[in-house]
C-alpha cells in the first residue's frame, strides 16, 4: 500500500509559551491527537508518528565535501517549521486526505500530505 508523510507545520517554539492556546486547550489537543493515533493503529494505517523538539534545536550538516560543515539551526529559514509528523499506510490519496483532515483537526495545525517514492518511481528515475 502507498505510504504518505503527514507533516505538521507550526511556529518554531510551540511549547508552553505559545499565546494562542490555553493549557486546557493544549491538553485537549494532546488527547485528540492520542485518540487519532489509536484509531490509525486500529485501522492498520499507523507506521510511525512523533512530535519534534523546537526547530531552534536543529543542527544542519553538509557532508558533501571533504569535511562536514556543521551549522546551528534549521536548514530552511521560514516562519513555520515541521513540528511533528506521521507516516501512514493507506490505499490511496483520498484516504490519506481524509485522515490528514482528522489529524489537522486533532493537533490544531496545518498538515501537508506527501507520498513516499515507490519502487516504480525509482525504476522510472533510472530509466
Amino acid at each position, binding site marked *: 500500500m*502507498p505510504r504518505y508523510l503527514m507533516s505538521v507545520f507550526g511556529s518554531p517554539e510551540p511549547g508552553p509559551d505559545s499565546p494562542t492556546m490555553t493549557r486546557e486547550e493544549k491538553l485537549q489537543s494532546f488527547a485528540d491527537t492520542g485518540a487519532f493515533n489509536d484509531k490509525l493503529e486500529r485501522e492498520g494505517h499507523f507506521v510511525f508518528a512523533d512530535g519534534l523538539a523546537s526547530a531552534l534545536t536543529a543542527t544542519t550538516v553538509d557532508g558533501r565535501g571533504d569535511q562536514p560543515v556543521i551549522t546551528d539551526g534549521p536548514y530552511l529559514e521560514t516562519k513555520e517549521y515541521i513540528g511533528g509528523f506521521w507516516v501512514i499506510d493507506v490505499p490511496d*490519496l483520498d484516504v490519506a*486526505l481524509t485522515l490528514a483532515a482528522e489529524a489537522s483537526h486533532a493537533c490544531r495545525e496545518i498538515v501537508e500530505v506527501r507520498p513516499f517514492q515507490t519502487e516504480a518511481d525509482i525504476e522510472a528515475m533510472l530509466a
Partner: protein
Amino acid sequence: MTDASEALARAHRDEWARVVAGLARRFGLDVAEDAAAEAFATAVERWPSDGVPANPGGWLVTTATRKAIDRLRRDAQRSAKYEAALMITDDSPPPETGPIEDDRLRLVFTCCHPALAMQARVALTLRMLGGLTVAEIARAFLVAETTMGQRITRAKAKIQAAHIPYRVPDENDLRLRLAGVLAVVYLIFNEGYLTSSGSDPLRVDLSDEAIRLGRLLHTLLPLDGEVTGLLSLMLLTDARRAARVSATGELVTLQDQDRGAWDRAMIEEGQTLVRERLASGAPLGRLQVLAAMNVVHTSAPTARDTDWSQIVALYDRLAAIDPSPIVRLNRAVALAEVDGPGVALAEVGRLASTLDSYHLLHATRAELLRRLGRSTEARAAYDRALALTANPAEQLHLARRRAQLPSRTS
C-alpha cells in the same frame, strides 16, 4: 464532408472519453491518453480507404487497447518489473455496467480531483474528457503550447505519484466532490462565454465544450439536481450569446438584447430541465436557482414583461444558500425593478466597502444614479467601473452609457 470524415468527427465527439476512460482503468491515464490518440490517428488513416467499421466505438477501444499493450511490451523490454505489471493488467476484469460504474465517471473525478491545481483540473478535463488537443487547449487559454503540455504532464505525474484514485468518491464525499467537478465545467463555460469576441477563428469554443461536458455529466448522473441545474444554466445562458455582443463588439445587456436572436431550441431544452427539477419537489441547490432565474428571463417576451418579483424571490433563496456580497449586489439590481432605484441604491451602498474593487458594483451604482437623475455621481461611478474592467466589450458598453448621460450644464 465525406462519410468517413463525418464518422470520424462523430466518433471523436462520442467515443473519445469512453476510450480514454476504459483504458485508464487498466493502463493508467498516461498510457490511455497516448493509446487513444494513436487509435484515432489510425482511424484517420484507415477509415477513408477501408470503410467505416460497423461499430466505430468498439473498433476504437480494440485498436487503442492493442496500442496500449504494444507500448507496455516496449517498456517491458526495458524492465522486468513492467512485464509483471503487464501480466496483471492483461487479466483486467471486463468493465462493469450501469451509469455509476461508467469508467467515464471515474475519469471525471480523477481529472477534477481537489489535490490538483484548478488550472490543471481544467486542462486535464478538456484533454481527457473533451478530447481537445494540447495545442487547442493552449490556444483557448492563450498560453504557449509547451506551457500547457507541461501543466498536463505534471498533473498526470502527480496523479500517479500521489496515488490519486481512479474511482467515484464514497457517498460521504460525493456531494462535495461533485460540486468541485461542476465548478470546473462552469469555469470552462464562463471562460468561453465571457471572452467570446470571436477574434480567433481557430480558438475552440470553450462554451460549446463545457455544454458537451455538462451533457456527459447529465448522462452519467441523470438524477443529480445540481448536474441538471448546471446544464440548464449553461444552455439558457448560451442561448442568448448571439444577442449579447453587438456587431461592433459592444456588450448588450439583457434589457436591450434582441430577443428574436435568442436560440429558442436551447431555451426550450434548458427550461424543460429546470421544470423537471421543480416538479421533483427536491430542494434546489445553487446552480438550479441560477437556472430558474434564467427561466424567468427567457420566458419574458420583452424585457418589460420580466417577472421581477419572481427574480427577487429567487435571489432570496440563493442568498440563503450563498450569502455572498455578489449575490446581494445582483439581488439589488432586481430589487430596483420591484421597489425602485432608490431602495436598490441604498442596498448597493451597504456593499460598497466590501466590493469596492469590483467593476460591476460601480456599473450598477452608475445605472441606479442615472435613473435617479444624479448625473454627476453616475459619471464618476462609470469612470470607476471603466478603470476596473479589462474586457473590451464591457468597456465599450460603459463608455457609451457614460456618454449618454445628460451634460453637466443641463
